[in-house]
């Protein structure tokens, strides 16, 4: 039986008076890569924040278990070592160098006021090399392009070396070659036993993961393997049949459906 990395039971969330998530039950298997997809406003990012324990408790109903333990009962630093987070457009960190930013990922591993140790430096170097950001480690983020900056931020999340990695739109600003590199990085992480959960806009890239959660209007409509016909049907349905999932060159791809437009 597969072990469960994150389990969400009866999750509802609201921001202000607006209900964003409604009655979500979800089991995300360990050692797998799961993508969360859905149209704009489906609640994908909010769900990811709930899974990471980053929404105020008053805004969330239901329980989240991380590696079998209630998320709210895990001390913050311990949770930070087990679960790494990469959000979208959250902060600029303009004044810090790439190396300093990546080193922030090691905070959960460092004792209070203790300087970074050899293991921290090694983890940061490995993360920066993995995302091919090592060459500009001395440059402040303000001097990097959007794509370069995103690779540094990804390195920061990798430097945590957490068992579970949650990412919200991690491919923002990345060009196609680096998107490909990112896919390989995620696959390597999962092959090494890690668990990856990513919210992705690009459905074709999301289809390269192992499992998919399809959302709309604050609910989970479907959860299944990326190569399962039922998942493809759910995808096409949630996007109003304006995409088709096709098998090309050994990969599942989402293509725009032009026929529907012609028939209108």
């Amino acid at each position, binding site marked *: 039986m597969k072990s469960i990395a994150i389990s969400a039971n009866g999750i509802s969330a609201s921001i202000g008076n607006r209900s964003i998530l409604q009655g979500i039950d979800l089991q995300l298997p360990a050692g797998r890569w799961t993508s969360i997809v859905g149209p704009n406003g489906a609640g994908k990012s909010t769900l990811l924040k709930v899974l990471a324990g980053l929404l105020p408790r008053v805004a969330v109903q239901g329980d989240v278990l991380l590696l079998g333990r209630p998320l709210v009962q895990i001390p913050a630093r311990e949770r*930070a070592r087990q679960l790494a987070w990469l959000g979208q457009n959250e*902060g600029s960190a303009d004044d810090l160098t790439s*190396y300093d930013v990546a080193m922030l990922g090691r905070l959960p591993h460092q004792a209070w006021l203790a300087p*970074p140790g050899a293991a921290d430096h090694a983890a940061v170097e490995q993360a920066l090399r993995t995302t091919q950001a090592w060459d500009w480690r001395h440059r402040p983020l303000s001097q990097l392009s959007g794509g370069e900056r995103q690779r540094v931020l990804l390195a920061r999340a990798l430097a945590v070396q957490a068992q579970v990695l949650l990412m919200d739109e991690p491919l923002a600003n990345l060009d196609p070659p680096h998107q490909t590199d990112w896919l390989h990085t995620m696959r390597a992480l999962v092959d090494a036993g890690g668990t990856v959960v990513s919210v992705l806009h690009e459905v074709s890239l999301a289809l390269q993961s192992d499992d998919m959660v399809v959302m709309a209007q604050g609910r989970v409509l479907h959860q299944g393997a990326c190569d399962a016909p039922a998942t493809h049907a759910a995808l096409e349905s949630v996007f109003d049949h304006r995409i088709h999932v096709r098998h090309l060159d050994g990969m599942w791809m989402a293509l725009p459906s032009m026929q529907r437009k012609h028939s209108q």
Partner: protein
Amino acid sequence: MTGASIGVPTSSATRRAAWCAAWLLLASALLAVCGASVGSTGFDSVLRMHGDPVAWQIVWDIRLPRTLGAWLAGALLGLSGAVAQGLFRNPLADPYLLGSASGAALGGAVAMALFGVSPVAAQWMARIGITGMAFLGAAGAVVLTLLLAKGVQHTLRLLLAGVIVGVVLGALRDLVELASPDILQAMQAFTLGSTAFVGWAACLLMAVAWALCSVVAWMLARALDGLTLGEATAASLGLPLMPMRVGLVAAMALATGTAVAQTGLIAFVGLAAPHLVRSIVRVTHERHIVLSSLMGAVLLMAADILARWLLAPQELPVGVLTAALGGTYLLWLMHRRTSQGGAL
């Protein structure tokens, strides 16, 4: 600490920061000599101070404490500005624009009106009383600004809230002054900002506050580094953000309140110092805060000497000079940010 800057990979930034600190300390030493020499009797008093009791009194009781006081007040304001800019993730945040300096001034005015003491008072209890009230005023003003701005997310709203709080608290301070005419004249020097009344007691008080605030800010600097990545990411790193924020606001308020209580309202040092440091070296907050504090100290000490020297034997209130220079700097900063396509 947080920064890998102490490790091998960013040693160039570390070296640059160390050089920057060394130059600022050297500048402090040179300016201290200048500060002890500027006055109606000039350098002559320094040369004769060992044999001449009057010269000794001029240098030891007047020039040195106000020179050192300017350094300490500048250090407090520089530290406060660096913490404010990091905490509110806003490069335009400073004790003035957040209203905390006005809150401190109101606190000081209330203390003087209630206890009948003036800002020139040298008594310990009076000094501590005014400083305590200024601290409460500064902390209250920051909380008020945050409540009005509904958090730190929107730069414009935060700055507007700070300006509103500053104006309203300034008006309240005027009312307190009007209600207590005894303190009116003393308060005028206080609101213009001056180091003329700083004695050794005030220096000691500022030194203690500076040491305390520096330690607190340095210990919590990693929260500021984490916050540069955004609220959610900082929380995901296991940082206890709420207690850290409380500690940082307290350090900022104590630094502002202590500086304002001893030297009155001195604008823009807290804004300019962190920016000048950033233009020289970019390091993590544990070093940035220390460098900003040293930069603020050098700036205010230099401004104080200039204020005493420009119209000698008359002297300008140093707050007027920093307001004129700092205002120009703020305009230039806004122009640069706009021309670079950034919003305020």
